[in-house]
């Protein structure tokens, strides 16, 4: 039974509990495990990699040890930075465009049955045709430059945004919609005041997937034809057997991907304070 909302959430932080040796508490151990375990795993993998490469004397062009990838990251930092900025620009512009196109399309699909019937086949077809096949065509039609890459990014990342947002817009509680009708809401008010807010959590899960796909899209775009960017740097370095530079580029790509993903999660938390409470509330009810 829940009576006093304040009491429930302050229970966990009773002073008597805090006074006990925190280092020995269950929370501390689990927090340590949460952080220490992944970090230890990463170091273990790197250690085994380094050791194996040295032990078996693997050629550097075949598989460089982590230490030489690290050295490459440092030595070629200005080159890597220049190409990283190009890729980052493509990712961000493409993703922004995908967001606009995705949300706009989702809103139209959820608002009108007719648009849904007309647009859905195209949305799905855009995902069944491999982007890697479309990219050379874009090159023929638009040429080199940033636009073919941006279009590839949009093509690959708008899909999860559309699908999730449409589901979100349709997930609005029918009882809630009826309640709004009895208060006199018109269709536009139902849409903006119930459907749109209900869709935001869904939108964010689509965005999390989309941001990761955006990075892949930019690299694919660059592979097909480019004169700058990390994807371009990877193909060029690979053909010259500069394998440590390939690995350095891959490392930067994953850092970009993880950072953007984390940024989305952060924005999500600030944009929907109510959602965090609701999730917490559901967990509490389950326990």
């Amino acid at each position: 039974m829940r009576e006093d909302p304040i009491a429930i959430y302050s229970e966990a932080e009773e002073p008597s509990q805090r006074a006990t040796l925190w280092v020995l508490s269950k929370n501390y151990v689990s927090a340590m495990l949460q952080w220490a375990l992944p970090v230890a795993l990463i170091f273990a993998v790197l250690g085994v990699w380094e050791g194996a490469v040295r032990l078996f004397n693997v050629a550097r062009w075949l598989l460089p040890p982590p230490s030489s990838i690290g050295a490459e990251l440092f030595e070629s930092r200005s080159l890597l930075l220049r190409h990283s900025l190009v890729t980052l620009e493509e990712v961000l512009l493409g993703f922004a465009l995908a967001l606009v196109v995705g949300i706009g399309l989702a809103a139209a699909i959820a608002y009108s049955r007719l648009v849904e019937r007309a647009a859905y086949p195209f949305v799905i077809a855009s995902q069944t045709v491999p982007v890697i096949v479309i990219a050379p065509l874009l090159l023929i039609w638009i040429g080199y430059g940033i636009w073919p890459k941006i279009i590839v990014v949009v093509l690959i990342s708008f899909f999860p945004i559309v699908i999730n947002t449409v589901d979100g817009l349709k997930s609005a509680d029918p009882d809630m919609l009826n309640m709004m009708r009895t208060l006199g809401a018109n269709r536009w008010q139902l849409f903006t005041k119930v459907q749109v807010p209900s869709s935001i959590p869904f939108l964010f899960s689509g965005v999390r997937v989309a941001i990761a796909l955006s990075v892949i899209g930019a690299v694919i775009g660059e592979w097909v034809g480019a004169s700058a960017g990390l994807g371009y740097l990877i193909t060029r370095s690979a053909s010259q057997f500069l394998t440590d530079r390939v690995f350095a580029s891959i490392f930067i790509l994953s850092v970009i991907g993880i950072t953007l993903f984390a940024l989305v999660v952060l924005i999500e938390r600030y944009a929907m304070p109510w959602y965090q409470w609701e999730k917490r509330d559901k967990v509490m009810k389950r326990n």
Partner: protein
Amino acid sequence: MVVRYKPTTICFWPIIVKMTSSAEYAAAQASSGPKMELYGIDKDFSVDRNALTVLRGIDLSVREGEFISLIGPSGCGKSTLLNIIAGLEEPTKGDIRTDGQRNDRRLGAIGYMHQKDLLLPWRTVLDNAVLGLELRGKPRSQIRRQALELMEYFGLKGFEKNYPSLLSGGMRQRVAFLRTVLADHEIILLDEPFGALDALTRANMQEWLLELWESWGKTVIMVTHDVEEAVLLSDRVYVFTARPGRVKLVLPVDLPRPRRYGMVTEDDFVKMKAAVIAALRGNDVRGGIA
């Protein structure tokens, strides 16, 4: 834990309602004709090409300022009837009049409170409360002021900026009440408003609603499963048969007002309760009364 919410002033209601003085209100009630009338309402649903009759020939009339309850076995169509009155569904047959006129544009003109509080989780308590006025395009600062004035009466003072998921079930239901009250419709439908609450909170809320309604004077139609609740709150109780729902008994509750929760153990009250239970049990032994 058990908090009683006393009105700060007896006549708090004029803050919202145009009908200001209690004298005016008394005059209106004395001359009141039926506020709402239902004539021969039938409702059929088609399920797998079979017609399922949910309501059959419902006649019902409520005077202005009257509180009536509809009670009946589960699935007797009480909630469907409320949906029809609210304008969310249309009857298969029959018509509905308000103030003596046939009214086919009821949706949005009749207050309706559901068993679930149906608060919008992304809105704070205050923003949920003002929803009805906001939808009518009233200026934001004005409607917020109106809501803030009533927060204390509804036991929500200090929680205006909280999100609903932080509130207890009883508090959430009071926010839903405040939303209904602020929307300021002349007829209010309540669909098991306390059904989701535990027994103790429910008893407190019933008494609180009694006070609210007695100083409020709106026309209320409430659906309930709870015989005691129906008798305690109502001027008349309509007992429904099992599906297809028909009116089996209309019982006037001539207990004095103002009523208090303590009355539930008095002889007259117990007799009324027995009469309602007898009517309920008479129609179908299998149909349980929750």
